């Protein structure tokens, strides 16, 4: 199949930030089997991330406040991309910036890399003070960021949207107008958990991003709405733990999906999702048109 100009074996990718840069999972699963690998967010300069604790479990979900810890684009190109390039699975690089220019610069740097098959633009990270979600919450800024990235590269662009908006169709349309080839949603929902003994946040930061099965009904609804608002393909993300969860997103209008938190629960989660979708498609040959 092909999605936004990216050739994939199947419509199942692993979601940014839940799969590192692939290496950690290569011990457990065959990376060649994945539809695509979306890297952890890469920034221009190294980021040390947020103070611990960075993880709190919540009912059927988790909050994280990683804060985009990563070693920066240079280190990525030198140390992490070559590993990913060895696999017959497209690498989609997720980029995050603090300004429109950051995004454009990242896209420009990546545009030279033939082993990069697509760019996912993270305008939806709730765990950073500057940039991040503030771009995705504002349709005008969304369009601006995507347009700047569009100018900087000919590679396929996926705009990753935040659920923390009143009307998802506005940033969805804005991203499409800015020149995105696809949308991916949802990123995490801003949440908070308080330690009742101390009265303070259970995370090192005040808030974190909620992910996992708890948010799936919200994600399905937003994908449904976004898919009807734009003509470009939509990638469904949010609490996908099994093939049936993925199929729910396909019915909602998604053309592909990303598996996130599930990777932590089961290292084979994405592989199982792929298998279960195949079985579903076998049972329902006319349900979807993956092409």
């Amino acid at each position, binding site marked *: 199949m092909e999605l936004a100009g990216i050739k994939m074996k199947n419509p199942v990718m692993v979601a940014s*930030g*839940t*799969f*590192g840069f692939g290496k*950690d*999972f290569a*011990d*457990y699963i065959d990376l060649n089997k994945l539809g695509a690998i979306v890297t*952890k967010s890469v920034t221009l300069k190294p980021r*040390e*991330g947020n*103070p*611990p*604790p*960075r*993880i*709190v*479990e919540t*009912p*059927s*979900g*988790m909050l*994280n406040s*990683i804060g985009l*810890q990563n070693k920066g684009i240079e280190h990525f190109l030198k140390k992490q991309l070559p590993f990913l390039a060895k696999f017959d699975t497209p690498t989609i690089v997720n980029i995050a910036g603090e300004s429109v220019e950051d995004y454009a610069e990242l896209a420009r740097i990546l545009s030279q890399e033939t082993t990069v098959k697509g760019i996912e633009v993270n305008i939806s990270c709730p765990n950073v003070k500057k940039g991040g979600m503030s771009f995705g919450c504002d349709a005008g800024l969304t369009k601006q960021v995507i347009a700047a990235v569009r100018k900087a590269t000919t590679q396929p662009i996926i705009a990753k949207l935040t659920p923390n908006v009143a009307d998802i169709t506005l940033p969805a349309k804005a991203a499409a107008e800015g020149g995105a080839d696809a949308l991916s949603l949802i990123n995490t929902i801003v949440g908070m958990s308080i330690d009742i003994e101390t009265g303070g946040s259970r995370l090192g930061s005040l808030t974190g991003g909620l992910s*996992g*099965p*708890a948010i799936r009904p919200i994600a399905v609804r937003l994908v449904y709405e976004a898919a009807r608002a734009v003509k470009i393909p939509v990638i469904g993300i949010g609490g996908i*733990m099994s093939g049936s969860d993925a199929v729910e997103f396909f019915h909602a209008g998604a053309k592909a999906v990303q598996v996130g*938190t599930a*990777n*932590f*629960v*089961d*290292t*084979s989660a994405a592989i199982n999702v792929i298998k279960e979708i195949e079985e579903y498609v076998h049972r329902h040959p006319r349900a979807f048109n993956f092409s």
Partner: protein
Amino acid sequence: MPIQEKCRILEHQKVGPHHYKLTLVSQYISSHAQPGQFVNVKCSESFDPLLRRPISFHRINTQHRTFELLYEVVGRGSELLTKYFVGEELDILGPLGTGFNIDPEKRIHILVGGGMGIAPLLALGEQIQNSKVKSQNALYVLIGANNKEHIFGEEEFRKVTDQVQVATDDGSYGKKGFVSDLLLNFIETELRTHNSELATIYACGPRPMLKAVAEIAQQKKIDCQISMEERMACGIGACKGCATKTAGGYRTVCKHGPVLDAKEIIWN
């Protein structure tokens, strides 16, 4: 290289008020595990609780292809674990992380465990005593807990060394006081006659205790390895969720650790 495997439960016993010992079968994991490493255990089939729970190797029995976990029920994950029966399987990820480093140059091994912190130390003690240079090694074990009921492993430790000291906060067993007091006393008395450069402290337990141990080690210029805890999501180094502050920046407890050089750790 770690794997994800369904491991059969060979034994599952209550060993304390809220404490259980679990023996699991795995040829691969038992033959690759190192003391100080851990497994990430799926405690339920439900999404609540969602994440795996990290538990250290308490004992590694390569010969029997088994490993033991010693765990305390402190919340829902550990509570659910108690519901698994002998013969059933648990979904295990492991062996994970970086364990203790037994430096062949060292001759004096001081194991310091607080509460459940003794869990990984038994595997370490047994490995030290099984090593070829066993006769040249001196192994000391210092364990502490709130009270007598919470002292575990003493008997097993006594099988590997007769140098076992115990302290309880309330004095209900052994010396009254903290295990860090035992350590300080030990260093200032018994260790005085030895070359402290040949010694290593291996510590595991609650954070305040570890901090005290690290301070003593630094003050007395003794090498010290500490097994840290942090909330985890993936357990395999992918998510950066278990970061702890070190002199070299944030490091993952699940991969770079859980055992860290005490000198590296930034306590606050």
